[in-house]
């Protein structure tokens, strides 16, 4: 997926709840590239555009799994703290 498509994807999948500044995607992608978590190649898209396409690497997948599980734990913690106490 290339940058523009990623932004559209995030908007649609989150029911437009996540409204990030589109541009901030690119610094983030650069950091992922540097860490070797994604790789990028210039390709021709379905709509016949020269676009830079990003793919997740095996290392990226592993990292994603770790991040997701730690995010879920944090969310669980927050939910517990915010839920009404029983005492």
């Amino acid at each position: 997926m290339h940058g523009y498509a990623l932004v559209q994807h995030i908007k649609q999948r989150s029911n437009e709840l996540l409204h990030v500044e589109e541009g901030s995607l690119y610094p983030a992608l650069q950091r992922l590239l540097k860490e070797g978590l994604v790789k990028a190649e210039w390709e021709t898209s379905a709509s016949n555009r020269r676009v830079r396409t990003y793919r997740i690497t095996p290392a990226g997948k592993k990292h994603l799994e770790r991040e997701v599980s730690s995010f879920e734990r944090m969310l669980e913690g927050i939910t517990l703290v915010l839920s009404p106490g029983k005492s």
Partner: protein
Amino acid sequence: MRNRIYADLSAEIEQHLAEKVEALMAEGMSRNEAEATAKREFGNVARMKERGREAWMWPRLESLGADVKFAFRKLRRSPGFAATAVLTLALGIGANVVVFSILNGLVLRPLDVPQPKNLFQIIQAKELWSSQSYRDYLDYRDRDPSFSGMMAYQTERVGLTIGKSVSRSWGFATSGNYFDVLGIQPALGRFFHAAEEHGPGSAPYIVLSYEK
């Protein structure tokens, strides 16, 4: 290598904007409108490129150096602003030093007793600041096998007369073994002991403290 990365980044951002403009125009916007909207929703293009490049810089030193140089140039050009900034920092740091030194004295200073880590406060579960009745204290003290001693105290407001001046102060009414359990010695005179306690309400001794 670097230049290639930066060029790719610029190219893909231009491409992003172009694709966005096309999409907006397909929805019926004019080119001008579409370009303005695309830029607005993208954010600051130059800033995004800079942040993208920063990802590759050797631990941010390049950008730090540039920032420092830039900051000095700016400060030299506007001494009024520089003075305000320095003053603000001075006041901020000063205020924090004051707060810290108070906190340090009250909270962080270790207790001045021989074994501060072996000192525990007994509270009732669920109520952090609850206190115990004197009778409960007697039961705990007599039946507890875990501690080498157990003392009780209660804070009291007391009147203090020195010469002709009268002031209000804080005092503690304590059990007779108070100082022996803490394991401390007086600077002057002697402390009272458990054997000198004659039940509740008897207050024949007084110990004065002083601030170092």
